[in-house]
């Protein structure tokens, strides 16, 4: 009995401990700033990027705020102290001049993205997905620019947007997540290097799925990207981001900001497949993924929907949130977080109901393996003026490792009696009986576990854009696949 149990644990371990596939680094020359952060570094970033005085002041003010702020310590996470003077805040693959077309991109970088399964050559790639690829600090290329341009959609790197659409940037940058929002938001606002920008004009359904692929390559650099998406009245867009990084033994910081604005009747669907390097099986190295993501449903009947599949990073600490200002607006959050070895994830959402008849829905699935920590933390807040609101939350945890933990911290605040909040939570383990049933039908142990997990995550996977639902399922299976064969 005891030995059989051990045998099964052993198999489980094999199943879960798939090595990280994207851990290679690309040997290219890059231009790095000296490590550390100070006023002149920030001025240098701004200068390098030819920014106007609005941006320069935005950065400097954020830096001044950041200096007054303290590293947050309210979480349950075990975070090694970060020396902010050891980080390089700007890393750019060395290029002689501004790139006009894909042909001018260093073939090594193109190869890197191809190794990752992201083909940047337009003719070869996914037929209806436009991709912006960000390598370390800078956006390499945005595909399908022309086709989008015809529809009036702007999809470019945020650096290009700062140069080409300064009025939009001044109007919207930092309006959802203000630079003083939190420690990492202030840091990002001071040093952000690149990211993506989307603008969907009125009465426009974006004709393509938009996608950004983030890659950290350089050893000492942090990645501080910024994404801003604006959906005007009666418009709709679906956006997906993917992330990987090489294996390095020291931890690396990734502190991004994502801001979404949805006007009347507009819809933004934001999906993330996060597979940053998670550290080795003893918990050495990996990415600290400390991200502030927030959307605001400004207009009536607007909708913001977050879907995330979080499988990587040593620590994931983020709460993609919705501020539901418009009447009858809808906020959604669908999440799968898989943690293994010594990974820690503290993730969830905030749904702030300010508009009448606003609704929100939260589906969170946590899978904990090894000695990992997997935490759902979510806030549902209904203001006194927000009459007749509804929220439904469901938080399910699945324990695979005997020393892993799963916790749920729901914060529910309602100040009016006409609104309804529902919260369901459950924790389950792989049931021996379910496994035996599947194996009795000829399905191998590791496949049976993958099948159970994929079933557990189905509600979330079905929310991903079709092109990526299968990819997410594969990624999860890959993370769970046996190391043998």
């Amino acid at each position: 009995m005891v030995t059989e149990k051990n045998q099964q644990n052993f198999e489980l371990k094999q199943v879960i401990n798939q090595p990280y596939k994207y851990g290679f680094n690309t040997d290219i020359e890059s231009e790095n700033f000296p490590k550390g952060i100070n006023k002149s570094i920030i001025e240098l970033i701004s200068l390098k990027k030819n920014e106007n005085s609005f941006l320069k002041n935005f950065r400097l003010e954020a830096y001044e705020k950041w200096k007054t702020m303290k590293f947050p310590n309210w979480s349950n996470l075990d975070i090694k102290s970060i020396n902010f003077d050891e980080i390089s805040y700007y890393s750019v693959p060395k290029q002689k001049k501004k790139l006009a077309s894909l042909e001018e991109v260093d073939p090594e970088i193109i190869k890197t993205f191809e190794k990752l399964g992201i083909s940047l050559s337009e003719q070869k790639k996914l037929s209806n997905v436009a991709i912006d690829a960000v390598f370390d600090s800078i956006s390499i290329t945005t595909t399908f620019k022309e086709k989008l341009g015809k529809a009036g959609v702007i999809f470019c790197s945020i650096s290009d947007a700062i140069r080409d659409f300064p009025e939009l940037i001044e109007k919207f940058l930092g309006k959802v997540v203000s630079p003083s929002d939190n420690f990492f938001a202030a840091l990002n606002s001071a040093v952000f290097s690149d990211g993506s920008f989307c603008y969907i004009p009125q009465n426009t359904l974006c004709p393509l799925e938009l996608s950004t692929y983030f890659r950290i390559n350089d050893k000492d650099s942090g990645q501080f990207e910024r994404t801003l998406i604006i959906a005007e009245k009666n418009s709709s867009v679906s956006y997906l981001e993917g992330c990987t990084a090489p294996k390095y033994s020291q931890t690396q910081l990734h502190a991004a900001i994502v801001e979404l604005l949805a006007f009347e009747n507009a819809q933004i669907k934001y999906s993330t497949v996060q597979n940053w390097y998670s550290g080795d099986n003893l918990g050495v190295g990996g990415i600290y993924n400390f991200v502030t993501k927030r959307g605001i449903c400004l207009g009536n009947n607007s909708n913001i929907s977050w879907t995330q599949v979080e499988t990587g990073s040593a620590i994931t600490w983020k709460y993609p949130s919705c501020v539901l200002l418009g009447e009858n607006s809808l906020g959604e959050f669908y999440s799968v977080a898989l943690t293994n070895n010594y990974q820690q994830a503290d993730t969830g959402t905030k749904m702030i109901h300010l508009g009448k008849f606003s609704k929100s829905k939260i589906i969170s699935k946590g899978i904990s393996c090894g000695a990992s920590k997997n935490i759902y933390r979510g806030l549902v807040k209904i203001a006194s003026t927000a009459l007749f609101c509804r929220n439904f939350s469901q938080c399910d945890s699945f324990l695979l490792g005997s020393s892993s933990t799963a916790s749920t911290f729901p914060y529910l605040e309602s100040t009016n009696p006409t609104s309804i909040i529902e919260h369901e939570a459950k924790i389950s383990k792989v049931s021996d009986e379910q496994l035996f049933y599947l194996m009795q039908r000829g399905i191998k142990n590791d496949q049976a576990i993958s099948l159970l997990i994929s079933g557990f995550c189905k509600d979330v996977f079905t929310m991903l854009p079709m092109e990526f639902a299968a990819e997410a399922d594969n990624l999860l299976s890959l993370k769970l696949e046996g190391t043998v064969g």
Partner: protein
Amino acid sequence: MTLKIKNLEASIENKIILNHLNLEIKDNEIHVIMGPNGSGKSTLSKIIAGHPAYKVNDGEIYFNEKNLLELAPEMRAHEGIFLAFQYPLEIPGVTNFDFLRLAYNQKQNYEGKNEVTPIEFMSLIEKKSKELEIPMEFLNRDLNQGFSGGEKKRNEILQMVLLQPKLIILDELDSGLDIDAMKIICHAILNNFSKNSSLLIITHYPRILNYLKPNYVHIMKEGKIIRTGSLELIEQLEQSGYQSVL
């Protein structure tokens, strides 16, 4: 294909459940095991199929000259052992269709044949479902999730018909089944029963034996088979209860 169980002793948490049990089932035979609650009938079926919770202390189980005790549950399944569960498990989020195709393709792989595509599988499963009067929408539901007792049992036999096993073990198939469903299911079992297959029925109630006529009737008590006979043994049992035969 012969199943040979010799001198089998098995336990769970140090409690002996099977106590030096012997049983031999040959091709084209139908056996039934009856016995009071707790006599170890269901345990026997799980041990043949390789349930990891039970420990075999002594004895052997051979099937088709292969030592089953050395094989993992999925390999026993590939050898042709099929257990229709008394309480089929619910698997949320996994559609019946995906599960059935996965199970079928595992068998194809094992036999060195090509996997079937979803479209090919659709026509295959449609035919099998008709045989059991299972509506197609059944296949889009999550495996056994929210199925009625009868639907679960019907789904078990759909799996059996699909996988064409050599030794079919029915663990309390009749519980939760109405007469009409029982007729359909038993008909499908017999239709798929061949010269190369055998059947082991585990039941409390002789009702099912009106449809599946056994060649051998075994009575089990305290982990061993204490009597073996023909259908007459059932009649005696029905008239006078277990006390008369024990």
